[in-house]
């Protein structure tokens, strides 16, 4: 039970870390065009 005192704050920190990673991906343009990747697979360029 004592481990909870450590694990819960750790999980809160983790939430913020993951949030920050997602934010970087977002600002990097990862999610700007959600439709294109679905079409890309149909138009492969490698002959």
């Amino acid at each position, binding site marked *: 039970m004592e481990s*909870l005192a450590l694990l819960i704050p750790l999980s809160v920190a983790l939430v913020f870390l993951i949030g920050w990673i997602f934010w970087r991906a977002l600002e990097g343009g990862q*999610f700007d065009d959600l439709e294109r990747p679905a079409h890309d697979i149909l138009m492969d360029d490698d002959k």
Partner: protein
Amino acid sequence: MARTIVAAGFEKYYEARAAAGVRPELLPPAEVYDDPLAQREFVAAPGEHVREATLILDRIRCAACLWLNEQALRRVPGVLRADVNFTTQRASIAWDPRVTRLSTIVAAIRAVGYDAYPFDPRRGDALARRERRRALWRLFVAGFGALQVMMYAWPAYVDAGAGTLSEQAAALMRWASLVITTPVLVFSCGPFFRGAWQDAKRRRISLDTPIALGLAAGFAASAWATLAGTGEVYFDSIAMLAFLLLGARTAELFARQRAGRELDRLARWMPSSALRLRGGTEERVPAHALAAGDRVRVAAGERVPADGVLEEGASSADESLLTGESRPVAKRAGAALVGGSVNLEQPLVMRVTRAGADTRAAAIGRLVERAAAARPALVERADRLARLLTHVVIVTAALAWALSGNVWIAVAVLVATCPCALALAAPIVLTRAGAQLLARGAALTRSRALETLDRATDVVLDKTGTLTQGGPAIARVATFAGADDAGCRMLAAALESSSTHPLARAFHDRRVGQRPTVRELRNEAGQGVEARVDGRLVRIGAQRFCAALAGSPAPETHAQVYLAAQGRWLAAFFIEDALRPEAEGVVRELAARGLRLHLVSGDDPAIVGALAARLGIGHWTGGATPQDKLDYVARLQAAGHVVAMVGDGLNDAPVLARADASVAMGAGADAAQLQADAVLTADRLGALQDLLEISRRAMRLVRQNLGWALAYNALALPAAALGWIGPWEAALGMSASSFIVVLNALRPLARKGQWKASPSSSPSRSLSYS
């Protein structure tokens, strides 16, 4: 690098959290919009003292903002007209330049807490991207937060009463929940609070108000319980509620942007620069700097930067963006080029006749922008109902709280019955219908027409220029001495290609074909054309002119144009105002739809009667004056019929205005197009079918959406008020109803098999069909 991004991002975070309105110091001064040079791109001057422009509105959240912006704009002295569209977030305004300036109008919008930019496609793009990123980020924070908070809540639910969970552990989890729920509420739910606050300051209620009240009440009660260490906490409900609400809102944003993008293609028809030829040198200039009279070189594969006339070179053009017709159109010297079409084969030189805002593409664009201004009556009623319902919801929630003493019932009522779905029901459908019609060659200039076209019982057709081509065409070819029909047509087309005689137009076939090479072309004014083809001398034109070459009297004397070679007759062409090739099919289709058809024309009754009989149109009138046409439509309307009028030409303008729904042919006079609810830009009658079909389906979707939203609210309000559903169920229900409405609005509007892939030359990156 990462640090810089984070710093920049956090700056946005605090801006989003703290600032309720716009921060004026970050905005460019509105005065820049008064610069006449800058205005050339986005301001139209339909009258001496009238200026029109389209503004992109920023920070619009719901249908109530639309109303507020309209009111704010209309109160500016000198503003003649102001209409705001929710789906495209654009305001279409007209003002008197003697009384006010554009900067004053923009300042009025900023004063009520919004911002406006003159419509510039590239700027709109960046705006849309930022909006999309923000929405996803908010959704992620809420979703991830909800997930985590639910894990902290789980032990408390499982433990309930068993006492195995220590007091400290439970308190720790509550505090962790509070820490994670706070950014969810403050950041993710920011738009709800900002919207509600803006409206509260103006003593009004919007769709955001009940949501903001519900979230705030729930959070305050839970936070108090955590701080005090006693009572129930519902952080999990709040975080999940925020996630579901944002999910619906994000879906709506994406659908809205998608619909808006379809319309944006219009604005992007024009390339941004052009290669101007001046005194033997070439110079790259912005397309809007072109003026009538300039000579421009257009490379193969490039877009034509303005309307003009081809001077050098021969090529073909893809005009599909403008007309919906994907077949290439052959272009030779003297041919008209439409701005926005694509030069397909050879480089060419053109002389500009109309540039910038005067081009045909720009004019159609403005008509379509205006379409949103006149919304169907059904939609107007739905909007009023949504506003009324918001008040009812808040009163019900207050009563439920007062009577039950349980804040969670009030939260459920506020969230479950927010009439968001009602406000969402129509705008997306209407915008999509407009965009899809445009892709099929019909520009909707008033979306109100969708409703009347759907209800139309009678279609009144004009003859000249509507059912017929409105210009000379080859009706029949008589060939002599074994000459072959196709060869004669080709030869005639080659000979007449540079002729300016009115009848020569009949030979200007738009299709690309292999034509014989013509040498020594000689134009005999009023007589015809003589030339040498494959070494043989041939003539085309008047009977006597050709007889001189053929050396014998013509074997056929009633034709209008003859073709002869040395010593023999080749063919005789019967020219008349021919029926459009698709007319018969369209008329059959309309009749099959159960529409009563009427043919009303100013032409000779005998001709009109014959045509009506041939097409199977039951009701017809010939020799009608414009007044007769007007009376005819008025009589039908008096008998309770809903009349759709299809016409062209100046004569039809009054009757087009009188009819319940009116459609003008694209080649018709401009006045007719301004009166009409829809313009068939392709000048192709077949687009009329698409127009009726899409109207019917669009209105069906709108009715389904409204019906669903009303039914949902009618069930949810009493259920929530009686405490049958908890806050998270309320959020699920409200989000699901919004989702369903948005998804339904995205259903196909046209029949299967009618889909046309967007042309490969299309600048749009999206490959989707809708």
